[in-house]
């Protein structure tokens, strides 16, 4: 499939009229694309390294949990004033104490944890499992594109939406696997960097002229599009950004990236998909319990997300945040006070339209015979059913068959209204 084809004179004419070539590209893809819903944003956050789901969403009502995790289990919820312990959600599950910043979201019904969710593949390789979670095709290695890109490629932007180069933005140095594919996306480390690195002089103006002149081929059109994008970003002036509602983002890379995602949303540059990732979850050794290594990672994670939701405020009505990690970790702790690679994990879905205040997913239990291959939390929800529900109900996707080839289950958890 040819991604972009331009009518030679047409593209140039439109460029001079100020229309972005991405508008043309959409038409040129030659597809009748369904229309996305105006103003909806999906933010995907990937915890690379396999976060320990049993410490994140704690099954404190399960006795076996405390038997399997003699030194690293998160203690059962206690009254005020004692040592840190799980924050009770529904009498059976609780949040890790470091996730306290997310508790208000639960209380107002915007947070829906999903447990025992993940990839049906039994791989315990980070490499393969991330690949499957991002390609959306478990156990199929040959898939060249990511499922978010397939969403973009098979769904038009909305009818009233202005064409935008920022429809999908990854706050990462390279385009992540999940966004690779035919549809154009932008990957950047930071908004500051999305600019030519030349100060003063007319270098950039001349480069722009070079791309605006001459044949309307793929190279010229991509260049014109880039200059359009920079202007759009500049007029939105995200550098002068002040978070709203007193939101304070952590200084960490993750926190700063979420801040920039908020900036892009508020700049109204037409962003529909945002992506960021955060590492440090591969806790084989000295994982810690209510405090310690994992707790520190969760501090940053929760504070960053809480700042984002605070900052967006009412805007969360149109936003869904989805967190994911390639797999969970072994039910039983290992000999180094850590956990090895496991199977099913946990996700968070956060947003104004989320039917929260409920832990989703069938709980498989932690008794020996209930464990997957006798060692890991078993899987009861395929991640594709979560992804396809959010794409359908939140973004208005109609072609989930193309997004998740070979996945036929239409069962949704009912996360969104």
């Amino acid at each position: 499939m040819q991604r972009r084809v331009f009518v030679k004179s047409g593209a140039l004419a439109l460029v001079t009229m100020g229309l972005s070539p991405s508008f043309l590209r959409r038409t040129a893809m030659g597809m009748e694309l369904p229309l996305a819903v105006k103003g909806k944003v999906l933010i995907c956050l990937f915890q690379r390294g396999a976060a320990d789901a049993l410490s994140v969403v704690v099954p404190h009502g399960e006795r076996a949990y405390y038997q399997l995790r003699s030194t690293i289990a998160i203690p059962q919820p206690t009254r005020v004033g004692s040592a840190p312990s799980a924050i009770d959600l529904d009498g059976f599950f609780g949040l890790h104490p470091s996730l306290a910043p997310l508790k208000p979201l639960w209380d107002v019904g915007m947070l829906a944890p999903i447990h025992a969710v993940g990839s049906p593949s039994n791989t315990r390789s980070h490499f393969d499992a991330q690949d499957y979670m991002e390609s959306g095709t478990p156990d199929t290695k040959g898939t060249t594109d990511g499922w978010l890109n397939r969403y973009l490629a098979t769904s038009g932007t909305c009818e009233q939406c202005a064409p935008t180069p920022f429809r999908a933005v990854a706050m990462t140095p390279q385009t992540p696997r999940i966004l690779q594919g035919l549809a154009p996306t932008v990957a950047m480390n930071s908004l500051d960097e999305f600019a030519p690195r030349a100060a003063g002089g007319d270098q950039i103006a001349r480069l722009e002229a070079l791309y605006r002149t001459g044949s309307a081929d793929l190279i010229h059109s991509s260049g014109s599009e880039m200059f359009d994008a920079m202007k759009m970003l500049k007029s939105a002036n995200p550098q002068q950004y002040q978070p709203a509602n007193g939101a304070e983002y952590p200084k960490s890379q993750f926190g700063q990236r979420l801040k920039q995602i908020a900036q892009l949303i508020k700049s109204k540059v037409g962003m529909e998909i945002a992506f960021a990732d955060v590492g440090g979850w591969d806790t084989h050794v000295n994982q810690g319990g209510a405090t310690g290594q994992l707790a520190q990672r969760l501090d940053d994670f929760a504070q960053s997300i809480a700042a984002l939701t605070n900052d967006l405020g009412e805007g969360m009505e149109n936003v869904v945040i989805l967190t994911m990690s390639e797999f969970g970790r072994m039910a039983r702790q290992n000999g180094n006070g850590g956990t090895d690679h496991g199977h099913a994990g946990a996700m968070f879905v956060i947003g104004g339209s989320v039917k929260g205040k409920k832990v989703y997913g069938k709980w498989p239990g932690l008794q020996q015979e209930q464990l997957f291959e006798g060692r890991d939390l078993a899987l009861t929800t395929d991640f594709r059913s979560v992804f396809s529900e959010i794409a359908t109900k939140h973004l208005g996707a109609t072609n989930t068959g193309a997004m998740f080839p070979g996945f036929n289950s239409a069962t949704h958890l009912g996360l969104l209204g």
Partner: protein
Amino acid sequence: MQYPTKVAVAAAVAFLAACGGSPAAQVESAPKMAAAPPEPMPVESGPREQTADEQVNHVLNRLTFGARPGDVEAVRTMGVDRWIDLQLHPERINDAKSDQYFAALESYNEPSQTLQQKYPPPNQLLQRLGAKGDRSKLTPAETAELRDATAGVRKVTIEAQSGRVDRALLSERQLQEVMTDFWLNHFSVYIQKGPPERYQLAQYESKVIRPNSLGKFRTLLDAVAKSPAMLFYLDNWESQADSNRPRLVPLPGAGRGGRNARGGLLTQQQQQALAKRRGGLNENYGRELLELHTLGVDGGYTQQDVINVARALTGWTFPRPQQGGGGFEFNPQMHDAGEKTVLGHKLAAGRGIEDGEDVLDIVARHPATAHYIAYKLARRFVSDTPPAGLVDRAAETFRRTDGDIRAVVRTIITSQEFFAQKAYRSKVKSPFEVVVSALRALGAQPDGTLRTAQTVATLGEPIYGHQAPNGWPETGDQWMNTGAILNRINFGVAIAAGKVPGVSPTNWKGAETLVNAPIDQQVDGVVAALLGGGVSPDTRAILITGQNPFLASAAALDTTPEMARPKDKDPLDPDEVMMMLPDPSGGPPQRGPARDRAFGKLQPPTKGLALIVGLAIGSPEFQRR
């Protein structure tokens, strides 16, 4: 991945006859020594659409990583056809300068095993020292050991990644380098697959791929199949017979790794014990062998073929990857000795390594493989949508010569389609090609650090950094996007500012006469050196004066630094070097991303020749080849 429908061989033959051409290439004999007399040069006859000058530019654009000063004259003097023939025979080309450079790099001269033992992965070392997670427990001697290991791993990484750039920059055997790049991408491996992988890369490139890059496809396939780099990347090293399958018993005293290293079959109990301990069949390599390395995804194989290919290749392994391993060996105890059928061929029960050898024979000689490889080569050399007739002729050469890569490439690069107007400058450069062609045009020296390799990564093609086994894209539509152009422009800006190591915008062969010349001469000199002379009058006008109708109307972007800029980071902070590629296991929180380091700093205004060089590299014309 898809390719044009196969046309019957008869049609290809008819096409040849209609063109009045004789069958293109003759069967190549084995590589000859430098002293051997030149053999006849079979080239496709018929008129070429490109002018003589265009042909010179074209072969330099497609069969090299870009013209250096003087290359155009050299090709013109030798004649395009003779030059092509010479490039098809790298063994006849003296490459002393490149050889000398690489003779000093440890990774290319020591077995990967030695490297890994000498510089163990830091996490492994920490674990061995019993201090993972708490470095304060280390004694001073242990701290020093850890520091040395970390430095060694960094060195191995730098040598493997920047070695790719530096060989492409230095080598006189340019077509061989282009083919090396092609096959490394066809047989792609990933540096972050796991700690052992990076130690294998220099050897994989220099011993497995390059020497076979213009040889027989079957030989190349064999070398790849037995390389620890591929065995580890696609998991075949640990693939073994499922518990219900018969396994072989090694003959006493036969050791491992040979055709005869086996006696009868293991008992069922022994089988199950082994399978329990070590897992079972892993189809990963078997699948990619068919889908990506040989037949292609539409090559007409079934899931059962995938399984049986994987079964046939069980026991193809190398020992103890985490400790540095060794070379390839066949482990009979892992091998599934049952009967199997692969693509219609029966493989009898009770055999060992021959199963895998037969599979490689079968897939290397499969007609779909001839077509798939021919298609990919034509796409690389001629056009993103190569003419079906050419692909068929190249596939026919593949079949006739039993997969002689040199002969197939010759068919393609001497064809009328190759020299068609439509093909001229029609390919978009990959990031690797952008960087290396700029360095070559400006006579850069290899810098021996990771920085040029990081620049390639910043442009979107981290070396050995493609996670999935299908390799980097070949077509322009996949390389071109909003962010890509920005990065390419910034690469030009960085060169103009003198911030790319090993290269100066004003001190290159040919620049001495330009530095103080009038601006139109400067522009013509730069256009000749960097853009092969071919630019439109508009482009020339913009480069010369900046006066252009578009320039007046395009509101110039004011990028003066009122915005907060990240502080420039130490380009070689050791931690950051290790962070060049994301660690799939997450790793510690990243400090600074690659793009900051490559050209994150706002560069001061440039003028004169440097400015023109920067503009030319950032221009649309430079993105083509």
